């Protein structure tokens, strides 16, 4: 077995096994090591997969697009697992952590990472499907970890909606399989007919009528898991209820890993049907997601839900860029995936620290955080700035490139509409974030600003009574700012200079735009 191919999968599997036996503190640091292993594995893949070069062995396969996604998973996982070390320490400090809960958390997070790397490295659409569905299963208990009403509800909706959504994608996969075996005999058996490379090579022979059905099912199914409208309803609940480092992984890379399936399928479907069909579907999903996110961001009251809706917004932009197509737009999409992953991971981890210090998820409960906890709040604020798409962060570069590619492709009206919606979202997020960070710290009380209205769902339903800060003295800051700062620095660095990643991005965009040749 090829070690370069095996590395990114083996690192989190080893991490999960070690987390099951090692004591909590050591296991937490080991999980960070495993995440760094995934990142290193991704970079090793990048070095071995130039333009047109691929590695394949058994069920695993890697080209430049795979390497880019593994790098994204590894980078976000490094931030999230490092923050996870402090997250567990905080819980233990508060007395909220049993040894079993800590072990379960660490094992599940590593299993989650392993599922994501298997998904992006799968040679086979069937295995990709299995890995994506497995991510839902391993994260279900992470979402529902608190066992409160809200938490159980979020986990239930998450499992049911995502399983049904991904089930639709399985039906689409079966349609593709039926089209592939009808297109000609496969010398190496039925499994070969499901390989990404086989489907790409034989895309022109696939039956157009059947591929039309398959394309709709696949876009709807993996779109559900990627948080795109119309099957997004689970996302804000699940991402707001999960522990902050898990939210970081789910928002930062899981959505992109699901979308990776759509990216790969697009070149196959385009070759069978022409580019108009998928483009139209993706434009509808992208604009719909942007509109919904903008609408619900304006009146948002919970800051973790604010970040969750921002993820729907960014997935909408990614869908838009994929709809535009071509190397320029897809390079922007891939840069957006990495930049959004890092910024969102830092934002969620920062929000986790805020939640820990303030004890309430309400935006109105956090006032003047910059004066009270300057380091945490400052990093959270900078991450929000990055998410808003301001320079020097990577999302600025990717959004500008995306707009340019859209106008060049003759989709000026759509791109204008999309960026107007982005502007609405920008204003909403900026207003909420300014309220949280700026202002005087003297009045953290919620009651005068917003009287607890029994009819209003969010505050009344909050099952965890807001923990007064005095009851849980915040542990010393220590080095918990370090992973967040590193994530932000990387996101800013990528916006200015891609350096050695530039050739990887170019070849990955080529694979995404033109498929495997």
């Amino acid at each position, binding site marked *: 077995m090829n070690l370069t191919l095996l590395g990114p999968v083996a690192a989190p599997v080893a991490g999960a096994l070690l987390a099951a036996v090692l004591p909590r503190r050591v296991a937490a640091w080991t999980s960070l090591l495993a995440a760094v292993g995934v990142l290193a594995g991704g970079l090793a893949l990048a070095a071995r997969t130039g333009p047109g070069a691929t590695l394949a062995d058994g069920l695993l396969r890697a080209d430049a697009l795979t390497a880019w996604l593994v790098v994204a998973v590894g980078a976000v996982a490094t931030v999230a697992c490092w923050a996870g070390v402090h997250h567990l320490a905080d819980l233990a400090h508060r007395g909220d952590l049993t040894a079993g809960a800590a072990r379960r958390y660490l094992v599940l997070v590593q299993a989650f990472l392993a599922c994501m790397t298997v998904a992006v490295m799968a040679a086979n659409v069937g295995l990709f499907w299995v890995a994506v569905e497995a991510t839902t299963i391993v994260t279900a208990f992470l979402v529902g970890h608190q066992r409160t009403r809200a938490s159980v509800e*979020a986990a239930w909706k998450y499992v049911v909606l995502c399983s049904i959504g991904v089930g639709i994608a399985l039906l689409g996969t079966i349609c593709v399989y039926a089209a592939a075996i009808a297109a000609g005999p496969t010398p190496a058996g039925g499994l070969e007919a499901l390989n990404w490379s086989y489907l790409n090579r034989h895309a022109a022979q696939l039956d157009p009528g059947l591929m039309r059905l398959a394309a709709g099912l696949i876009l709807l199914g993996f779109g559900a898991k990627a948080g795109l409208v119309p099957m997004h309803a689970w996302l804000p609940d699940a991402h707001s209820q999960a522990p902050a480092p898990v939210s970081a992984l789910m928002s930062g890379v899981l959505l992109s890993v699901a979308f990776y399936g759509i990216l790969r399928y697009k070149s196959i479907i385009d070759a069978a049907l022409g580019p108009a069909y998928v483009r139209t579907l993706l434009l509808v999903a992208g604009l719909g997601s942007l509109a919904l996110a903008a609408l619900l961001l304006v009146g948002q009251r919970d800051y973790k839900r604010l970040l969750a809706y921002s993820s729907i917004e960014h997935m909408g932009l990614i869908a838009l860029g994929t709809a535009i197509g071509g190397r320029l737009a897809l390079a922007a999409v891939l840069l957006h995936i990495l930049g959004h992953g890092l910024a969102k991971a830092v934002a969620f981890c920062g929000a986790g620290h805020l939640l820990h210090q303030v004890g309430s998820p309400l935006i109105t409960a956090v006032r003047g955080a910059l004066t009270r906890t300057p380091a945490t709040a400052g990093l959270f604020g900078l991450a929000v700035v990055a998410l808003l798409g301001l320079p020097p962060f990577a999302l600025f570069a990717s959004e500008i490139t995306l707009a340019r590619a859209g106008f060049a492709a003759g989709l000026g009206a759509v791109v204008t509409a999309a960026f107007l919606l982005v502007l609405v979202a920008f204003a909403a997020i900026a207003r909420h974030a300014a309220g949280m960070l700026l202002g005087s710290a003297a009045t953290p009380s919620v009651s005068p600003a917003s009287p607890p209205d029994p009819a209003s769902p969010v505050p009344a339903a909050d099952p965890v009574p807001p923990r007064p800060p005095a009851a849980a003295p915040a542990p010393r800051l220590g080095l918990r700012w370090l992973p967040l700062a590193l994530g932000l620095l990387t996101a800013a660095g990528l916006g200015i200079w891609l350096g050695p990643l530039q050739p990887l991005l170019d070849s990955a965009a080529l694979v995404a735009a033109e498929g495997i040749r």
Partner: protein
Amino acid sequence: MHGATWVEQIFNLACGLLLLTAVGALWRRETSALIPILAVQGGALTVIAVLLASGHPDATEAMVVAAVVGLLKVVIIPLLLRRVRRLVRNARETRPLVNVATSLLAAAGLCLLAYAAARPLVAVAETPTARATPVGLSLVLIGFFLAATRHRAISQIVGLLLIDNGIAATAFLATDGVPLIVELGVCADLVLAVLVLQVLTARMVHTFGDGDLDDLRELHD
């Protein structure tokens, strides 16, 4: 199927049973009745898998797939569902969102829709069994309908399982079954998903005191 009419008859009977059990799941309000209905449906699916395996180019692999499907849908899933059922004391669908008579009408409409949607699949696959593919899609659509209109946690799980049976039936009828390794992965995912839902149902009963999904309205904007 070389003119052996009894094979064809059993095949047709199994396809009919698939559809009948799906409609039966909509018809019965007592959630305890859903478990034997699903077991019978799993049995019908297994029969189809075994019949197809006998004519499959790689018969051993296809037989293993059929055995796995049978074990899963006739033994393991009903067992897990019985454990879910034990968690919830009173689990009758007292007031489904759509009443039973309308549900049955909707099922008829969904079957028609399935026949329309399955046309490209039937057209492409060359096997005579592919003509029964609309049955699989009908199961999927009826499963959606069940999951969307019922209030009980266990009903929603059954809806999910109907969808899965429908997808499996479509795979067998249109393509003679997906490759073994993919089928194994899909089955493993299904068992784990039902296990996760069982644990979540237990937590729901613990925190809400009931398995009624109407209580799930803490989170919205």
